């Protein structure tokens, strides 16, 4: 009799680990983009499992907009400590201070200019491959991207010039000045990520679960009131039970109303949700059909 196929979550996990091991073997200096968000937390867990009992053989790179949720920074520091991992912080504020880029804040968020800081860190540290937690289910442009995606010397993605990616043979070679963005979670969905978090009993920043928070509704996005987000004339702060579906720059990542306090409850909640992860929570993806493609061409994650 034909044996039962392995569970798909095991297959996704094994594939992601395979990709990480290939890149570590073939690239000179990889790094893992770690924001403290759930997708990068899953990446970190995979890296931990891929190389244990040894240490994670690459540094973590945090591109810090300076507009953070304190819970995320706390989580980042805790995980770095637990794993005795190397952490490199590339600061957007520092890029602004050095005159690499103008600060768009407060007219616009610092989300877009993170690309400048990221490109600068990649060239400063000589990283030739960066693991990222991006998933193809997040956006139409991401849906087109290879697992191992080439960035030209300006950091930009050229979607019409992607290398063929055959079978599961991943090749890590690049020319001088080029680098790779590697997406081990390409075939995972938001639900897969949460099922994995549940299965692995993973720790996450507390803001992924329900908590009371003072928020202000801006264009349907519930922004946390903070030193950067202050209710203006005609706006009123409300205290609600919320959680975050994604965690990014605190000035544009929205919360969702939620009573879900555990991974099980979050999974049940996502199962009922009629709104996609980015649609619900990200101010940055609402501009146009091509906003993600444009940002990726500029070197965004």
């Amino acid at each position, binding site marked *: 009799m*034909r*044996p*039962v*196929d*392995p*569970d*798909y*979550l*095991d*297959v*996704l*996990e*094994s*594939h992601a*680990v*395979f990709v990480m*091991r290939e890149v*570590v*073997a073939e690239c000179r200096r990889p790094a893992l983009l770690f924001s403290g968000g759930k997708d990068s937390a899953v990446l970190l867990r995979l890296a931990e*499992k*891929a190389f244990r009992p*040894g240490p994670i053989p690459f540094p973590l790179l945090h591109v810090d907009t300076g507009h953070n949720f304190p819970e995320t920074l706390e989580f980042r520091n805790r995980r770095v400590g637990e794993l005795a991992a190397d952490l490199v912080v590339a600061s957007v504020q520092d890029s602004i201070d050095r005159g690499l880029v103008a600060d768009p804040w407060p007219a616009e968020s610092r989300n877009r200019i993170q690309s400048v800081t990221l490109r600068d860190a990649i060239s400063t540290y000589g990283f030739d491959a960066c693991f990222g937690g991006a998933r*193809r*289910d997040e*956006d139409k*442009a991401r*849906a*087109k991207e*290879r697992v191992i995606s080439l960035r030209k010397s300006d950091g930009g993605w050229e*979607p*019409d010039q*992607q*290398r*063929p*990616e*055959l*079978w*599961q*043979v991943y*090749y890590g*070679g*690049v*020319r001088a000045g080029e680098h790779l963005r590697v997406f081990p979670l390409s*075939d995972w*969905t938001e*639900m*897969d990520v949460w*099922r994995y978090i549940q299965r692995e009993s993973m720790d996450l920043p507390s803001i992924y679960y329900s908590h009371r928070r003072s928020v202000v509704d801006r264009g349907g996005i519930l922004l946390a009131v903070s030193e950067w987000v202050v209710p203006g004339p005609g706006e009123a702060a409300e205290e609600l039970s919320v959680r975050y579906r994604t965690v990014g720059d605190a000035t544009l990542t929205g919360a969702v109303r939620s009573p879900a306090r555990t991974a099980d409850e979050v*999974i*049940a909640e996502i*199962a009922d*949700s*009629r*709104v*996609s992860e980015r*649609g*619900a929570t990200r101010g940055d993806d609402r501009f146009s*059909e*091509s906003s993600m*493609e444009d940002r990726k061409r500029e070197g965004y994650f």
Partner: protein
Amino acid sequence: MSAQEREADSIDHSGEVALLRLAAVGAVDDGKSTLIGRLLHDADQLTEDQLQALESASRARGQSGINLSFATDGLRAERAQGITIDVAYRYAVTPHRKLVIADCPGHVEYTRNMATGASTADLALVVVDATRGLREQTRRHTALAALFGVRHLLLAVNKMDLIDWDERRYRELTQEMQLLARSLGGTAVESVPISARHGDNVVERSVHAGWYRGPTVLEALEQVPTSTFAGPGMTGMRLPVQLAERGPEGTIRVAGMLMGAEVQVSDEVVILPEGRRTRVTALETLAGAVSSARAPLSIWLTLADGVGVQRGDLIASAVDPPVPSRDQVATVCWFAHYRLCRGQEFVVKHTTRVTTGRVLAVESKLDLDTLRLGPASYLETNDIGVVRWWLADAIGADQYQDSRASGSFIVIDPKTEVTVAAVMVGAPAVT
């Protein structure tokens, strides 16, 4: 029930949810992207905001209602030209399956992207416009899918509403595809009469085709066996070594992703290309120590005598190991914009081994329309042919028809670092 609810349901059956990778192929305008959009829509995989985005995209192009084909075209150039340039991946989940859908481009100039989608697919979903029949592009794509080792074809005979659900026409097209599949090495064919635009027999059963008793597209996708990388001709296990660590007393612990048959502690294995035999003394999956492990899991495997084992070596069952050789005759799908000729040298990657290879001879070229090999001395962009290679290192390659993963290699231009060819060991599977 929403898709996510179905997915949540599937949690109760963990262990039974298998991954199925499919490549959607077909000629331009036969309705491939519309079918994928319809499948996602009717299987409730699209959220409200995604539907709104589709609606406004449709309106922006002067179309009323929702044009479901926009669900997969992701690049600006694709929307501008109204064609698919590169593979888009979409996901759907049912109680028994996680589907990874690769929407493959139709134009011959994007063959490299179609190959990218087909090379990992378990099944090809071939979309044909019932009013136009099997076209040259349909045949070419079906042949390419078969060449890349896709063993199941699901033919969606689309636009049945435009021919009044004519059963005879549907049977003719199905028969034509079965004939083609027979000439392509006996790939299994199932077919479904559909209207992607109106949603007949995609997820919901059509009320217009009372004569049709078979499955809907979604049902067919749930029923087909998933069979990733091992063919019936290979009985053994293969483990390409990704990383190797020394252990105590000459043992060595290697990491890799399993393919082929199950491996058990105490199995006798052979280390290729060296040829030394030894035993497996321990196995670990990502969950911990185990006594046996199955493909396609990533594992650590400890060898009793593993001195000298390194990345790029292949651990194979001692029962039917491939014969290591530097001389490889293989079917090549050539992507570069220059000619492939005798004497050229490239970087070659077979499983986890990176080496170099020289073209000894271009032996023949495949005509994808007649499925015949003819004489040739070079290959041009998007040509397929048989090429003899001489590699700097011996590789333990299986025949591609037996094992996709250990029977294939990629060819890289050392100047640009770009992959310029997909290589399948052995003669084309389709002749």
